[in-house]
């Protein structure tokens, strides 16, 4: 055996023995930093012996050639199965040529020892060249460390080449590093909250710890023109990163020893073992896997925050376009905040002791899509202990929260609040799902991130170009109270934090407590709880035959109203989409959509199923609990109303209608007017009479009101309850409180025949300019004789314009049609009006349908021309 082969044999056994010793040491202490230092030292020793054998008997020779550690090895962090980053550095090409064979032999011996080598050969001049397509090499030089050979060559690299290169190329270098980092984050959905994260690559992982150091180093070096002091990061960031590093080092060593290779995936099995062995958390009490992952996510979150702040705070690194964009984002102004380069700063006078200020800050962030500056985050953290003593709650908190949820960048604001521990302080109900890993082969993210992602996926609908997303975006745009949907999404999986419980039931209970805390009013509360209770319902239906009318009918009946159906459809869409990026396949999107339109059509076509003492116990119990009324009186009132009447009106509203119906004997027309968040709501209770609906819509048109939605129902006793939701186009009611009374009196007078509706309409028409049509809607008239046993259903789709509903309903009256039920809706510039019609107490004959269609088309055409 030759001397060389003897050496290799000796090194091989020494490497095996020492590696085993390091592994045993780690198993005993769990000290990752010690393990990587020992392995670094082991490999250095091995390199030295090989250097003497293959390159030079003198550690300081030969001239013009040096061996340099770079990357992780340069930092002195050689993980058990990591690659060894080496730079063969030459003074010039002549030296390189001279030592070519030695380098080859040296590398070959390392490969034979089964060490994974990442070698690079460069001259000093080549190191000085910056290649935008290979920023990794220049970055790896930032961690360079002398090992062997000509120290003077190394000193030229370290003291002259690198500082000059970094100072000269700092902008593209930072830009390149930022781009590579953002691209890597993008591959992981920009979130740390993966159920099985990659310890090195996932946002907040080891790579980000390095990125934070490099960013700070490049920044400092570009200013100083030389190597800065080691502690160039700001102290709080440094402290957070150091804590994260200790943990991540231990965890990565654990994974390498566990797998016996450079595998950094924190699989569920690895999480179990890490928790049992308290890897990186030796001071903790016994840990479950979920507890251990919470510690990991805590470190990862802090690391990601530090990196993102550093990325945002280096304006020189941004491209001209990005600078321009950030400049544009600097425009939003606010008395309490200022914006510089897309970052929010607090005005000097602003105090975060006022909880409202804090809530306004996140609303501002959610509205403009801005980020918090590091100083603002620091001030928030300082303000939290005082806030924790008396956190805001009740209607005021709900008001701010709902306004924040509605903003286009709500998810980013929620993530920032969550990361600063503010979200769980305001809504402690979210604590059990904070960084919670629930093992499920479909879910990719933790429960809290999944919930926020679901909210984000709805907000992103408007920007999407996908055919499916556009359909769902339209439905989202039609919602009356989208904030309730967002709140339901935030809370829908909170029950997953209760071990062993049925998560839907547990979520309902937790959401109930949260709604109490927010003092959410009864009707809204019912909607949120309905959505949470049924958040798996549509997915469950997809496993049935969704083209079977009975399946669709049963589902639609369970949902009850079109508004709830829209919300449930969107919640299902968002919930599936937030499971993982591929979860919402076109197949699923189509199925959800088909079920939605099937159920929506069913609800429109079954609105005349009448109440005959068959109200659900739940509704009846609610009505009885509210009412100072007897059961018999209540039953008489609701007898014969369509089921839809009870579905679209809350128990409180039904009671109010019943009281108004009582008063009809004194005053024939009872009118109630109130202002909602989106529109005014007019309720009218009276005895049925010809042209009632046409006259009522005429009065509103004459007052310049724009009817957005309407329901018209009647009971067996001939009592009519019409509810019209309208916007006040000329702000008549908004600006003149006295007009409220005059408006109501006008309705009563016209229905009593004491005022001239036609004259009022002519006056209004004269004073109005033609409205510009933004989107042309083609008129469509459809009859359906099959969906009701007593009425013919007419659906009119037309361009929305003033007086449209009055003209349609008047036309129907002229054709001697009785409107049994009217369901009026508006979608953008499209009016969608559904009427259940009878003529002479029967369905409309084919002839009458033909006449009605012709009359309506003529009427709508004349309206278009007027």
């Amino acid at each position: 055996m030759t001397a060389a082969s003897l050496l290799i044999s000796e090194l091989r056994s020494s490497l095996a023995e020492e590696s085993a010793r390091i592994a045993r040491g780690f198993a005993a202490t769990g000290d990752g930093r010690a393990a990587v230092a020992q392995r670094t030292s082991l490999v250095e020793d091995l390199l030295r012996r090989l250097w003497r054998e293959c390159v030079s008997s003198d550690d300081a020779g030969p001239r013009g050639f040096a061996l340099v550690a770079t990357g992780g090895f340069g930092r002195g962090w050689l993980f058990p199965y990591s690659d060894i980053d080496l730079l063969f550095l030459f003074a010039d090409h002549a030296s390189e040529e001279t030592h070519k064979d030695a380098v080859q032999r040296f590398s070959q011996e390392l490969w034979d020892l089964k060490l994974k080598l990442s070698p690079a050969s460069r001259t000093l001049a080549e190191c000085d060249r910056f290649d935008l397509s290979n920023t990794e090499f220049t970055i790896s030089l930032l961690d360079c460390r002398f090992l062997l050979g000509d120290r003077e060559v190394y000193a030229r690299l370290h003291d002259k080449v690198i500082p000059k290169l970094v100072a000269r190329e700092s902008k593209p270098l930072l830009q390149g590093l930022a781009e590579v980092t953002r691209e890597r984050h993008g591959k992981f959905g920009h979130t740390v909250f993966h159920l099985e994260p990659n310890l090195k690559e996932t946002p907040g992982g080891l790579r980000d710890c390095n990125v934070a150091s490099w960013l700070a180093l490049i920044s400092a070096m570009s200013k100083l023109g030389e190597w800065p002091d080691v502690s160039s990061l700001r102290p709080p960031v440094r402290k957070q990163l150091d804590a994260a590093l200790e943990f991540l080092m231990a965890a990565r060593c654990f994974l390498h020893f566990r797998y016996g290779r450079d595998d950094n995936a924190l699989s569920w099995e690895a999480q179990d073992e890490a928790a049992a062995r308290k890897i990186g958390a030796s001071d903790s009490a016994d840990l479950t896997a979920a507890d251990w992952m919470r510690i990991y996510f805590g470190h990862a979150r802090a690391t990601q925050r530090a990196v993102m702040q550093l990325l945002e705070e280096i304006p020189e690194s941004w491209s001209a376009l990005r600078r321009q964009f950030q400049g544009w984002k600097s425009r939003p102004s606010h008395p309490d905040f200022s914006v510089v380069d897309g970052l929010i700063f607090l005005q000097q006078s602003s105090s975060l002791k006022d909880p409202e200020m804090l809530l306004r800050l996140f609303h501002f962030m959610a509205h403009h899509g801005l980020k918090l500056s590091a100083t603002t985050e620091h001030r928030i953290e300082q303000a939290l202990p005082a806030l924790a003593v008396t956190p805001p709650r009740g209607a005021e908190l709900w008001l701010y929260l709902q306004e924040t949820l509605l903003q286009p960048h709500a998810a980013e604001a929620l993530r920032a609040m969550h990361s600063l521990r503010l979200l769980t302080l305001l809504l402690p109900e979210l604590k059990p799902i904070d960084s919670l890993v629930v093992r499920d082969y479909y879910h990719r993210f933790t429960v809290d991130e999944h919930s926020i992602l679901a909210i984000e996926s709805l907000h992103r609908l408007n920007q999407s170009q996908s055919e499916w997303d556009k359909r769902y975006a339209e439905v989202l745009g039609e919602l009356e109270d989208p904030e309730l949907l967002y709140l339901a999404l935030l809370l829908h999986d909170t029950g997953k934090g209760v071990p062993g419980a049925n998560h839907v039931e547990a979520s309902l209970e937790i959401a109930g407590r949260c709604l109490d805390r927010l003092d959410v009013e009864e009707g809204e509360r019912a909607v949120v709880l309905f959505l949470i209770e049924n958040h798996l319902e549509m997915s469950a239906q997809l496993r049935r035959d969704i083209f079977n009318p009975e399946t669709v009918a049963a589902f639609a009946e369970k949902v009850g109203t079109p508004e709830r159906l829209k919300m449930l459809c969107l919640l299902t869409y968002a919930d599936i989409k937030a499971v993982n990026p591929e979860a919402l396949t076109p197949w699923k999107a189509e199925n959800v959509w088909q079920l939605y339109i099937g159920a929506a059509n069913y609800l429109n076509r079954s609105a005349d199923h009448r109440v005959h003492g068959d109200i659900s116990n739940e509704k009846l119990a609610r009505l009885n609990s509210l009412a100072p009324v007897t059961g018999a009186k209540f039953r008489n009132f609701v007898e014969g109303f369509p089921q839809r009447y009870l579905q679209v009106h809350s128990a409180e509203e039904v009671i109010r209608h019943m009281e108004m119906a009582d008063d009809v004997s004194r005053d024939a027309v009872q009118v109630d007017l109130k202002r909602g968040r989106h529109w005014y709501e007019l309720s009218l209770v009276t005895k049925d009479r010809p042209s009632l609906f046409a006259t009522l819509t005429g009065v509103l048109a004459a007052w310049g009101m724009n009817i957005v939605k309407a329901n018209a129902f009647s009971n067996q006793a001939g009592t009519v309850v019409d509810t019209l939701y309208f916007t006040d186009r000329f702000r008549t009611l908004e600006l003149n409180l006295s007009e409220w009374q005059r408006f109501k009196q006008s309705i009563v007078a016209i229905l009593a025949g004491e005022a001239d509706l036609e004259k009022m309409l002519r006056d209004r028409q004269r004073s109005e300019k033609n409205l510009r049509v933004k989107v042309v809607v083609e008129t469509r008239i459809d009859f359906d004789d099959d969906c009701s046993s007593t009425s013919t259903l007419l659906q009119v789709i037309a361009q929305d314009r003033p007086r449209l509903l009055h003209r349609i309903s008047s036309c129907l009256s002229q054709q001697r049609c009785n409107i049994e039920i009217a369901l009026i809706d508006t979608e953008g510039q499209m009016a969608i009006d559904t009427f259940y019609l009878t003529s002479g107490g029967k369905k409309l004959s084919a002839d009458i349908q033909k006449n009605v269609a012709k009359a309506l088309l003529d009427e709508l055409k004349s309206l278009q021309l007027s």
Partner: protein
Amino acid sequence: MTKVEAVIQNSKLEAVKNALHEIGVEGMTVAEVRGHGRQKGHTEVYRGREYSVDLIPKTKLEVVLADAMVDKAVQAISGAARTGKIGDGKIFLTRVDDAIRIRNDERGEGAL
């Protein structure tokens, strides 16, 4: 060996899976597919817009079996997937030359 491909209604997947498990078929591949037979699709009108479903969402189940199991599997699938109405789906049988277990290169029926 024979490959059994069954295109069935989505609502019947659980029943078919259970029926196959009962006769000892454990592994299978399931895919979300769309298509139509003679049944063709249908059109739903929603708010004045027509949404035609030319290709109806279905579920495709694939399983490769030893020949001795094929008849039992076909009976299990058709028994569990049948409603008697149009759209119940179809079963296709194809000869399979060989099967290889990637983990250990085992071949033939032993690899199934």
